[in-house]
């Protein structure tokens, strides 16, 4: 329970209370728990966990960007083997990448406390799906703690390390976008690092050959029972009493929504959504006449409660898709007859303007996809800002599956009988993450495809993180840069070239030659991101309004700095440039059919 303001002010005087996001609180919790090694691959909404950890002293914690989530988890596992407390952070789909290591480590357990922070994205704000990571906990027999706000994110992360060491298990701290990106007051504590445990030689536990793994599986099942017994009385579960006519079981970020619409109802708030404290749940179910389970995405808790023999109502009232909100939870309880329907006051609602995210003004991907579109190729896309090129007017890619899929997809599209040239487009960070095995496969199996590496020198989509191709680490130290040309040649690619993304003619020309090459060709479109690590800004261009013939060639770039002016030519809108957005990349001037786009100084004089 939170205090009223006056009390809050007093307690603030005693305690250090800071406004932290869920991600910052997870980082703080890990630091306070004495984490020594942390690794992650950036992914919305989890990215800021490692960025935030990197702000703590380097002597306390080694924090690193790894090439992908599997490597990140393996690094954390290694640190745990060595007896240090370790954390890996990733988004929900990152756990798919790390799943191989994850499932094996579930058998091995933990020497130094091993915590996996996984951030789901219900509502798919910035992902390719909205899978529910809690099911991974069930699958692996690994406990899943679910914070409902930033304070709990800190407290549960600290606790996770203790549970990890006490029960010899990896522990998942599961957040969602709403937790990650909500800032609320958090009382922070001090760091108390336990002494390092050192490497413990125990091949029967640490080496997963079949004979050992069979024994360890038994240990996993026994461990789950012990965890259940622990969670029966753990203070992270809260039974908040209310009237007995109905009760709600909930966890994580759904809890505040339930409290918002039912401030006085009986609620059992679970601190862990796996494993479940069965005796506690039984007692709770028996205390109320009607039982609801409110959880985002899959009915994980609901199914378990039903398996205990109780009639739980949940997914018939609360959707299985999308993010929850107070409105959705209220609507569910109204439908269930628990809340009286509110009189619907239909507010005046003008038709909303469509404003999908777009590539930035001056984005080097723009020219890459102008060339891609002109090539007439079938294009397998990948994950990154450039996925936005699937929208009009660039409309330059045909498929996007998951990180690094583009190259394998392209091989399959070509083998599957596609008659057009086949192209894979993949960003630099994504290429390093999971694209290299695909490229080797393409060479090995003699595919006839072109791989366009969109090298903007940064992991742009998640806000500009470094990777092995940037020459900098998470803490900003210099490190060797991956040489993509040398890498491609080393795996056997014969046709490799690098071209300046801003040279549109060269882009067109080289892409055409790359496609004409029989076998695997690699073209690297090379220009830094305009936002990160430094915001690029050059002198803005302007349109000579007299000369513009409104042909719309430049509008095909989809550049946000280009828009329609007030004048028309033959009933088509002339174009104008928003000087505050334009960075002077000159792509529009390069496609202009009448040369009416020039430096602003020249047009205005």
């Amino acid at each position, binding site marked *: 329970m939170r205090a009223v*303001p006056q009390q809050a002010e007093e307690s603030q005087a005693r305690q250090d209370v800071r406004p932290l996001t869920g991600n910052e609180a997870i980082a703080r919790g890990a630091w306070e728990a004495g984490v020594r090694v942390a690794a992650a691959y950036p992914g919305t909404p989890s990215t800021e966990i490692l960025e935030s950890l990197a702000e703590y002293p380097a002597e306390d914690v080694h924090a690193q960007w790894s090439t992908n989530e599997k490597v990140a988890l393996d690094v954390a596992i290694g640190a745990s083997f060595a007896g240090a407390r370790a954390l890996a952070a990733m988004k929900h789909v990152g756990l798919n990448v790390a799943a191989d290591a994850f499932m094996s480590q579930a058998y091995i357990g933990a020497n130094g406390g091993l915590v996996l922070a996984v951030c789901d994205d219900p509502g798919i704000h910035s992902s390719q799906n909205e899978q529910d990571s809690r099911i991974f906990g069930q699958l692996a027999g690994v406990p899943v703690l679910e914070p409902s706000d930033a304070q709990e994110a800190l407290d549960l992360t600290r606790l996770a390390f203790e549970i990890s060491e006490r029960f010899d298990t990896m522990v998942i701290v599961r957040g969602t976008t709403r937790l990650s990106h909500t800032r609320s007051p958090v009382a922070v504590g001090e760091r108390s690092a336990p002494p390092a445990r050192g490497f413990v030689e125990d091949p029967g536990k640490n080496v997963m050959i079949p004979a050992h793994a069979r024994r360890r599986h038994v240990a996993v099942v026994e461990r789950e029972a012990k965890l259940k017994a622990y969670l029966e009385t753990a203070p992270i579960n809260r039974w908040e009493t209310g009237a007995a006519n109905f009760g709600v079981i909930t966890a994580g970020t759904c809890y505040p929504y339930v409290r918002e619409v039912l401030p006085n109802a009986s609620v059992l708030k679970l601190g862990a959504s796996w494993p479940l404290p069965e005796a506690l749940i039984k007692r709770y179910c028996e205390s109320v006449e009607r039982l609801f389970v409110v959880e985002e995405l899959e009915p994980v808790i609901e199914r378990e409660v039903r398996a205990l023999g109780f009639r739980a109502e949940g997914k018939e009232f609360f959707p299985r898709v999308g993010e929850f909100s107070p409105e959705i939870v209220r609507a569910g309880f109204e439908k269930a007859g628990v809340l009286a329907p509110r009189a619907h006051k239909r507010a005046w609602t003008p038709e909303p303007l469509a*404003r999908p*995210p777009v590539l930035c003004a001056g984005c080097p991907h723009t020219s890459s996809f102008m060339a891609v579109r002109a090539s007439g190729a079938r294009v397998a896309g990948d994950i990154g800002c450039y996925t936005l090129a699937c929208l009009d007017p660039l409309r330059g890619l045909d498929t996007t599956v998951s990180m690094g899929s583009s190259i394998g997809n392209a091989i399959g599209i070509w083998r599957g009988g596609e008659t057009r040239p086949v192209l894979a487009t993949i960003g630099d960070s994504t290429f390093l993450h999971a694209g290299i095995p695909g490229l080797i496969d393409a060479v090995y199996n003699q595919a006839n495809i072109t791989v366009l590496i969109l090298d903007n020198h940064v992991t742009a989509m998640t806000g500009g993180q470094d990777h092995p191709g940037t020459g900098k680490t998470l803490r900003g130290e210099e490190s060797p840069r991956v040489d993509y040309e040398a890498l491609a040649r080393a795996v056997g690619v014969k046709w490799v070239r690098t071209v300046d993304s801003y040279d549109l003619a060269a882009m067109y020309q080289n892409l055409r030659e790359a496609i004409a090459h029989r076998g695997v060709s690699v073209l690297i479109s090379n220009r830094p991101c305009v936002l990160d690590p430094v915001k690029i800004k050059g002198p803005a261009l302007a349109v000579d309004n007299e000369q513009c013939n409104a042909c719309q060639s430049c509008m095909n770039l989809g550049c946000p700095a280009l828009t329609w002016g007030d004048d028309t030519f033959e009933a088509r809108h002339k174009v104008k440039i928003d000087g505050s957005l334009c960075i002077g990349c000159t792509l529009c001037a390069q496609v202009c059919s009448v040369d009416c786009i020039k430096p602003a100084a020249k047009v205005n004089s």
Partner: protein
Amino acid sequence: MSGPKTSRSSLEGEKNRPAAAAAAAREPMNVLIVGVGGQGVIMVSKALAWLAQSKGFEVKQSEVHGMAKRGGSVFSHVRFGAQVFSPTIPQGEADILVALEWAEGLRWLPYLKAESGIFICDTKRIVPPFACLNRRPGAPLRYSRETPAEVKAHVAEGYAVDATAMAERLGNERAANVVLIGALSSALEFSAAEWEKAISAFVPKKTVAVNLEAFRLGRAWIDEARTESPQAEASPEPRLPGAEAPVQVRLEITRAWCKSCDICVKVCPERCLRLDAERIAELTDPAKCTGCRLCEFLCPDFAIRVHREASPERDGARA
């Protein structure tokens, strides 16, 4: 520092402050801040959240970023009070809606409290490339057409501020968000000095002076707007490129003259030309052709002619 005032209308003896003063000790105060990626929505919400927390309130500030940076719609919910549960504001419960862009303000109107909500919106228009997709002759821009007067008629209390122009006059267009903080400040019971402290903490060091000026300008503007007659409005009605009489476009291709050079296919902005089986230029999608004449101008063999004819009964002007 004193606790939040729950009664009595004003801290500085100024009359005529908007009515949504913080009864936040009982019910959370809900402020929704919206705009377009890069405008500084998050900075506004951080400053407000910081200020509210420094006054002892429980504060939740929730936003979603990621894709938002790419020129998409950005929003941030700020809720503060004695106790706040949901990090997001339920529809119809926002006390104040601050919009840094006109169409974004309109988008979030359903979140505003119908009977008492305050709407503060920059008249700045950021037209997305999506609004310019229909390039047929005579097609209008697809941008919100509601005027400030219309919007004000539908909200309890509405202000259309040309904050961007005000910031431009100060020499820094990027301070527009702080002009809006100035306008917002007048609706909440925090003192001007406290606001200025919050702003100084969240803007780049070099721009503190201009931002404080922007804050004062916004605060003075809304005080004046409140005392003037409600019709008096500083901002002009936005002028949108209108629709013209629709025309029909017809492409005439002289097959005998075409030598398959492909130039027209490559330059067509609508990408609606191709070479057919006999490698002669052909129009694939007549509905897409805007009659821009690039192919006509650039064809080395004069094989393409563009005819623009008045179309009597076409509703081509519809977006």
